[in-house]
């Protein structure tokens, strides 16, 4: 069963990665990042059971905390960018290029 869970986790991670690369809406990109974090958590929990060691669950718990903090800051940044540029597209924020 361990392999099944890990393959599912890898699939979800890859789908999230494709989403980050393909989508242009900053909020949707952010959701895809969350999906990748969730996929990692699934792998952590699976390995915790595989090894009979609860440390994996603790790490997954910390990942969740960091993800929550990241969402708060990320969404605040998106709102700030939207306020100045009237757009939530990642293509529009390209001033650093020039």
């Amino acid at each position, binding site marked *: 069963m361990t392999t099944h869970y890990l393959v599912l986790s890898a699939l979800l991670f890859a789908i999230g990665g494709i989403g980050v690369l393909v989508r242009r809406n900053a909020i949707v990109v952010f959701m895809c990042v969350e999906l990748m974090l969730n996929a990692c958590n699934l792998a952590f*929990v699976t390995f915790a059971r595989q090894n009979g060691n*609860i440390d994996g669950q603790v790490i997954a718990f910390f990942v969740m905390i960091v993800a929550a903090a990241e969402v708060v800051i990320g969404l605040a940044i998106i709102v700030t960018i939207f306020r100045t540029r009237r757009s939530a597209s990642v293509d529009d924020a390209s001033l650093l290029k020039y």
Partner: protein
Amino acid sequence: MGETITFWVLAVVSVSAALGLVFSRKAVYCALMLGVVMLSLAILYAVQDAPFLAAVQIIVYTGAVMMLFLFVLMLVGVDSSDSLVETIRGQRFWAVVAGLAFAALVALGVGNVVFAPAVGLGAVNAAGNVPSLAELIFTRYVFAFEVTSALLITAALGAMVLAHRERLEQKATQRELSRERFVKYGEEGIDPSPLPGPGTYARANAIDMPALLPDGKISKLSVNRYIARYEAEEGTIDPKVAEILEGEDK
């Protein structure tokens, strides 16, 4: 056996929801799809002897994080859809190729590993999942736990700083606003009074009832264009309102 069935059902659900997240046009659908993925992952945690994480997943992710996402989505504008213009030529195609290649790489790599039968968490969880997690968090990981609290405080402060807006100019007073309205009336002929509400002088005050002028005609300003267009499609539109709309379209 029960676990196998649960796994396959939830695997199909979560992968298709994840694909929906990537491919659906509307951002709100994306958020709902992400919610489905998170809920199915919560059940998978519960199946894998991690009841505490399952509860935290539902409370933190589907509860707090998803609500925050939806909140910002409504703030930023629900209809802010993706632009279809590619800034880098062929970027979408190569992104999908790279993603599929990565999935194949990891899946094959993991698939080729032969795992010993899972040890299981029966012994560790004997005292209960939450007490054994708490023991680890407050002994071996206590420093990480303290750092986490600093991180959360920093995040809260950061969000407040980012969301705060300095007022650069004085707020317009009511006097200035009304002066502005009448200047506009004088220069452009825009009526200074508020728009007539729907249903004024009419027998009903539903939003789809246009206001009547004293001479019984319909006030153009009070016709809700959105509802009128919808009603025109349905064929339930008031003929008088339809006249006004027709006059506009031409």
